[in-house]
C-alpha cells in the first residue's frame, strides 16, 4: 500500500538538489524552497497527527533486500517526534536565511541541511532497523559535512572528523546489536516478517525475550544503546559535540535541537519494549549513564568560556536527563518514556531558541565566542537578551516555564523510582544536576549580558531587525507556554499514564536548587569579573577544565599512541615483507643464472650428470625397497 506519508521525508529530499541549483544561479533565493518543503512535511505530519487521534498506527512496507523491509511505521511516539523535528527545523531554516545571508556557499548550506532534515525525518518514521540505520548514518554524514562547512578552518575540519569518527564507533556497535537480534530472531519470526522490523520488535518484545533469553536481549539492547550513546553524546562518547561548535551556529542549533542528538534518545524510546524485557541491568545502564552524564556535563559546562560550548554541554546534560528518564521507566512503567519525550520536545524548543539567540550575538560580534570578552550586551541588544533569558529560565526549570514541568516530572519520576526500587542514586544525581544547570547557564548569561562591554566588538553590538527574530519569538512563546500541554501530552503517548506526585517537599526541592544555582552563578560571575580569585592554579579547576582528561585519553593516547604506531608498525613491516618477496625473487633468478653455468656444452659434463642422476635414482629405489 503506497502511503502518502512517505512524502514526509521525500519533500525535504527534493529540496536537496533543488536548493543547490537555485542557489547556484540565484543566490539570494536560497532557503525559500527548502523552507516550503519542510513546511509541507510539517503539514503532512499534522495530518498524520489528526489521523492518529483515532487510529493506532500507520504502517506500510515493501521488501528492500532479502528479508529486510523498506517502509514507514508511524505511531503516537513517532508523530510527536516528527512534528518536533519538522517544526524546529522549519524555525531554524527560516532563521538561517537571515543568518547565512552573506555566506558565499549558502546554496550548499541549504542543500545539506535539507538532506539533514530528510535523514532525520526518515529515521523517525522508518519501519525497519536497517532503514533506520541508513538514515542514522546519513544524519552522521550531514553533521560531518555541516560541522566542516567552513572547511578552510583547520579546526572545523578536525572537529568534523572527530564527530564522524566518534559517532561511527557507536554506529558500528549498533550494527552488531542488530546482528545479535537478526541471528537469534531469523528462525522464529513469522513468515514474511523481517526480523528487524520495528513494529515486530516492539509488539512482540515479551515473546522475543522468552524465546532468545533476557540476557541475550540485554546484550543486543546494550549494543544498540552504544549507538544511541554516541549519537546522543552521552558519556563516554560525548567528546565530539563540544568540538562540533566550529560549524555555523544554525547547524549547531539543528544538531542540538532537532536533527541529530535527539535521534539516540528516540532510538531507545522507540525500542523501549526490548529494553524493558531484557535483563534488568540493561535499563540500569541506561539510567546510570544518563544520570551520570547529566552531572558530568553540567560540571564541565560551568568552566567553559565559549558561549557555544556552554550550550553544547548543556545539551549533553539535558540528554542525560532524558536517558535517565527512559532508564527509570523500567521500574516506574512506560510513563518514564513519556516524561523523556516531553522533555525532549521542550528541550528542542528552548535549545533551538538559545542557539539562535547565540547566533544573533555571534553574528553581531563577528564570531567572537569567548564570553569573557562580551558583557554588557543587555543594553546593546535588549530583545536578544530577553529572548535568551526566556531560554535560560526554561533550561533552569524555573516555574512556570515548560522546562519546569518537563524536568520536574523527570525528577519526580526518579524519586518514584527510589520509592519503588530503593535506589536513590539517580535521584541524587539528577537533583544535583539541577543546581549545575542553573549555574552554568546563568554564569554564561550574566557574563554575556551584565556589566560593561569587555571588548570593542561588544561595544558595537546591536539587535538585528525584529523581523529576523520572529522564529525566536515563536520559540520563546512556546518555551513559556508549552507547560499547558503536559498532561495531554502524556495521555497522547500513553493513555494509561500514571503521573506520580511526590511529597510536596520533594517537589519543591528542584525549584529551590535552581535558585541556589542562579545564586552560585552570580557569585561566580561577580568573582570572575572582578578578578577576585585566581583559580587557574587550582587542581580541581584544572582537571575540570581539561574535561577530566577524557579527550586527551582518546586523542593523545588511543589515537596517537596506539592506533597510529600500530599502523606504522604494520605498514612498515608490510613494506619489508614486500621487499623480502622481491629479494626472494632475485635470489631465485640468481639461482637460474647459476644453473646456466652447468650448460657448458661439454659432453663430458653432461655424461657425468647423467650418470650421477641415474645413480641417485637407483639409490632412491633401492632405499625404498629396503624400507619396505
Amino acid at each position, binding site marked *: 500500500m503506497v502511503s502518502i506519508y512517505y512524502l514526509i521525508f521525500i519533500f525535504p529530499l527534493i529540496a536537496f538538489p533543488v536548493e543547490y541549483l537555485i542557489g547556484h544561479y540565484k543566490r539570494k533565493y536560497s532557503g525559500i524552497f527548502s523552507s516550503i518543503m519542510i513546511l509541507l512535511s510539517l503539514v503532512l505530519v499534522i495530518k498524520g497527527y489528526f489521523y492518529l487521534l483515532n487510529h493506532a498506527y500507520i504502517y506500510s512496507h515493501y*521488501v528492500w533486500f532479502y528479508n529486510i523491509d523498506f517502509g514507514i511505521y508511524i505511531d503516537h511516539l513517532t508523530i510527536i517526534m516528527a512534528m518536533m523535528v519538522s517544526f524546529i527545523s522549519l524555525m531554524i531554516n527560516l532563521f538561517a536565511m537571515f543568518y547565512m545571508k552573506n555566506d558565499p556557499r549558502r546554496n550548499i548550506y541549504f542543500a545539506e541541511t535539507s538532506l539533514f532534515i530528510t535523514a532525520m525525518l526518515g529515521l523517525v518514521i522508518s519501519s525497519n532497523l536497517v532503514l533506520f540505520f541508513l538514515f542514522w*548514518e546519513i544524519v552522521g554524514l550531514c553533521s560531518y559535512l555541516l560541522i566542516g562547512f567552513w572547511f578552510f578552518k583547520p579546526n572545523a575540519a578536525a572537529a*568534523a*572528523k572527530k564527530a564522524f569518527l566518534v559517532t561511527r564507533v557507536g554506529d558500528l556497535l549498533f550494527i552488531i546489536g542488530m546482528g545479535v537480534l*537478526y*541471528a537469534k530472531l531469523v528462525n522464529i519470526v513469522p513468515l514474511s516478517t523481517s526480523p528487524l522490523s520495528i513494529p515486530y520488535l516492539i509488539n512482540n518484545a515479551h515473546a522475543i525475550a522468552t524465546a532468545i533469553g533476557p540476557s541475550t536481549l540485554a546484550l543486543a539492547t546494550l549494543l544498540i544503546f552504544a549507538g544511541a550513546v554516541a549519537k546522543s553524546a552521552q558519556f563516554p562518547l560525548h567528546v565530539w559535540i563540544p568540538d562540533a561548535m566550529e560549524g555555523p551556529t544554525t547547524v549547531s542549533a539543528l544538531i542540538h535541537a532537532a536533527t541529530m542528538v535527539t535521534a539516540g534518545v528516540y532510538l531507545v524510546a522507540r525500542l523501549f519494549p526490548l529494553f524493558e524485557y531484557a535483563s534488568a541491568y540493561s535499563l540500569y545502564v541506561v539510567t546510570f549513564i544518563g544520570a551520570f552524564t547529566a552531572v558530568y556535563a553540567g560540571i564541565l559546562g560551568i568552566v567553559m568560556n565559549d558561549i557555544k560550548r556552554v550550550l553544547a554541554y548543556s545539551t549533553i546534560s539535558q540528554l542525560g536527563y532524558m536517558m535517565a528518564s527512559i532508564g527509570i521507566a523500567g521500574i516506574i512503567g512506560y510513563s518514564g518514556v513519556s516524561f523523556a519525550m516531553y522533555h525532549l520536545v521542550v528541550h528542542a524548543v528552548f535549545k533551538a531558541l538559545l542557539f539562535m539567540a547565540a547566533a544573533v550575538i555571534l553574528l553581531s560580534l563577528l564570531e567572537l565566542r569567548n564570553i569573557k570578552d562580551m558583557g554588557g550586551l543587555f543594553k546593546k541588544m535588549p530583545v536578544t537578551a530577553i529572548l535568551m533569558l526566556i531560554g535560560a529560565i526554561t533550561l533552569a526549570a524555573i516555574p512556570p516555564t515548560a522546562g519546569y514541568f518537563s524536568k520536574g516530572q523527570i525528577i519526580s519520576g526518579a524519586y518514584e523510582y527510589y520509592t519503588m526500587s530503593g535506589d536513590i542514586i539517580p535521584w541524587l544525581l539528577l537533583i544535583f544536576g539541577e543546581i549545575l544547570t542553573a549555574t552554568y547557564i546563568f554564569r554564561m548569561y550574566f557574563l554575556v549580558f551584565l556589566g560593561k562591554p569587555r571588548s570593542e566588538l561588544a561595544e558595537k553590538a546591536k539587535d538585528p531587525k525584529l523581523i529576523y527574530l520572529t522564529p525566536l519569538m515563536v520559540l520563546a512563546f512556546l518555551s513559556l507556554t508549552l507547560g499547558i500541554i503536559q498532561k495531554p501530552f502524556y495521555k497522547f503517548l500513553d493513555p494509561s499514564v500514571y503521573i506520580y506526585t511526590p511529597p510536596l517537599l520533594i517537589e519543591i526541592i528542584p525549584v529551590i536548587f535552581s535558585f541556589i544555582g542562579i545564586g552560585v552563578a552570580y557569585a561566580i560571575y561577580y568573582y570572575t569579573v572582578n578578578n577576585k580569585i585566581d583559580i587557574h592554579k587550582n587542581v580541581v579547576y584544572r582537571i575540570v577544565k581539561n574535561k577530566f582528561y577524557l579527550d586527551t585519553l582518546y586523542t593523545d593516547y588511543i589515537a596517537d599512541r596506539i592506533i597510529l604506531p600500530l599502523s606504522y608498525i*604494520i*605498514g612498515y613491516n608490510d613494506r619489508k*615483507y614486500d621487499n623480502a*618477496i622481491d629479494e626472494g625473487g632475485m635470489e631465485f633468478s640468481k639461482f637460474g643464472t647459476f644453473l646456466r653455468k652447468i650448460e657448458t656444452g661439454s659432453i663430458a659434463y653432461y655424461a657425468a650428470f647423467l650418470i650421477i642422476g641415474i645413480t641417485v635414482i637407483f639409490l632412491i629405489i633401492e632405499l625404498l625397497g629396503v624400507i619396505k
Partner: protein
Amino acid sequence: MILLEFLIAFLIVTIISFFTGKYAKYFSLISVFVLTVVFLIYSFSVFGSYTGGIISESNIVLSSFTANNISVRINFSLGLTGFTDALVLMALIVTIFALLIGEKSNDDTFFGLLTSVGFGLVGLFMVRNFLFFYIFWEVVLVPMFFVIGKYGSYNKDKISIKFFIYTHVGSLFLLLSIFTLSTYYFLKTGLFTFQISDLMNLAFQESLPKFALYFSFFGFLLAFLIKLPTFPLHEWLPNAHYTAPYSGSILLSGGLLSMGGYGLLGILYPVAGLFPLALVYFLIALGLISVVYFAFTSMFQKNLKRMIAYSSAGEMAFVTIAFGTSLLSTGYVRTFDLAGGMYQTIAHAFVTSLAFSSLYFIYKRTHTIQVYGLGGLYRETPVASSFFLAALLASLGLPTLAGFIGEFSVTIASYQSLGLLTLLIIFGLIVTAAYFIWAAQRSLFGFYNEALGKLKDLNKAEFLILFLMLVSSIFIGIYPTLIFRILTLYASHLGGLI
C-alpha cells in the same frame, strides 16, 4: 546460444578495437556500451523468472570420442547463475568506466588491451568448463600485464613482471588442481572431462582420496586468495596499482579482484562442505586478519592511490569472511551471508571505480597524489573534491553508497557463527573510517596548499563521467534488490548443495 553469440561479438569488438587508430576510445566505448545494453535486456528477460541454479547452458562439443570404455569429451559450455549474471554485468560496466577514463586517448593498443581484459572477464564468468575457465583466467592476466608494463608509470618493468609472476603462481596451482580433479574423474568413470558441474560435484569429490582432495583445495584456494587478495598473499596488489594507469587500476580492482570472489563463492562453494573445520576457521581468521591488517596498512600509506588499493583489498576480505562463516551457519543466515559476500564482490567494483576515477581527475590537476602534497583542495576544486569525498565515504561503507549493503549483510550474518568476534570486523571498519576521514581532512580540507597554484574544476565531460559513477554507486546502495534477489536465489541454491 545467445551467450555464445554475445561472446563472439565481444571478441570481434576486442580485435577490431586494436586497429581503430585515433577512434579507439569512441569505438570501444560505443561497442561495449551496446553490448552492455544487449546483455541488460537479456538478463531482464531471462532472470525475471530466475529460481536459482544454472541457466542457459550452451554446450558445443569440441572433441568427443569413445573407445574401450574410455571416453574423452571437451565441451565449450556457457551458462549463467544469478551470481555470474551480476558479475558479467559488473565486468561490462567496469570496462566502460575504465574506457571512459582511458588516459592514453590516442593509442588504440591501450584501448584494445582494456577491452581484452573486459572480454576475458566476461568469458571467465560465463564458461562452465574448467579448460576454458583457465584460458579466460589467463586472457585477463596477459593484457593486464601489458597495460601495466607498457603504460605504467614508475618502475613499470619490474612491477609488471612481479604482478605477472605472482598471480601466475596461483594460476599454475589452479591448473594443477583442475588436472588432479579431471584425472581422478577419469580414473573413476573412464570419462575425461573438464565440465565444472562434473568436477565440482560433492558426491564425486567425497569419493576422492584425502590427499588429492586437499591438494585440489589448496590449488584453488591459492589461486583465488591471491586474486582476492587475502593477507599474506597480497603483495602484488599495491605495487601494481601504484604503477598501473588509472583505467588499469579500475580494471585491476573492479575486475581482477572480483575473479577471486567469483572463484571462492561461485566455483569452490559447492564443494566447500568437504572443507575440514580447521580450514574453515583458518579462512575466517585470514579474512578477519585481512580486514584489520589492510585497515592499518592503508592508514600507513602516504600515497592516496596505494591507500585506496589497500583498502580495496580490505573490502574484499569480507568475501573471505562470508565464505567461511556461511559454511558454519545455517538456514536464512547462510543465504544472507553468501548473498552479502557476492554483493560485496560486485559493489566493490563500483566503489573503487569511483575512487580511482575521482583521484585521477585530482591527479590530472595537481600532478601529485601524496597526501602531504595536497591540502585544502576543496577551495579550488569543490566539485572534484566532493566526488572524491563521496568515493572515500563509499569505501568506508557509508549507507546509500554501494559499499554498505554487502559489508552490512556479512557483518550481521556472521554474528551467528562468529559471535562477538564480529567486534574485530567492527574494529577494522573503525580504523578504515579513521584513515579515510583523516585523508579527507588532510587532502581536501584545511588550508590550501598554495604551491599547487590555481586549479580548474571539472569540465562537463569529466563531471558527467563521475556523476555517472556516483549515480550507479548510489543505485547499488539504495536499490539493492534488483541484484540481491538473484544473488539470494543462487545463494540459497548453493546453501542447499552443502
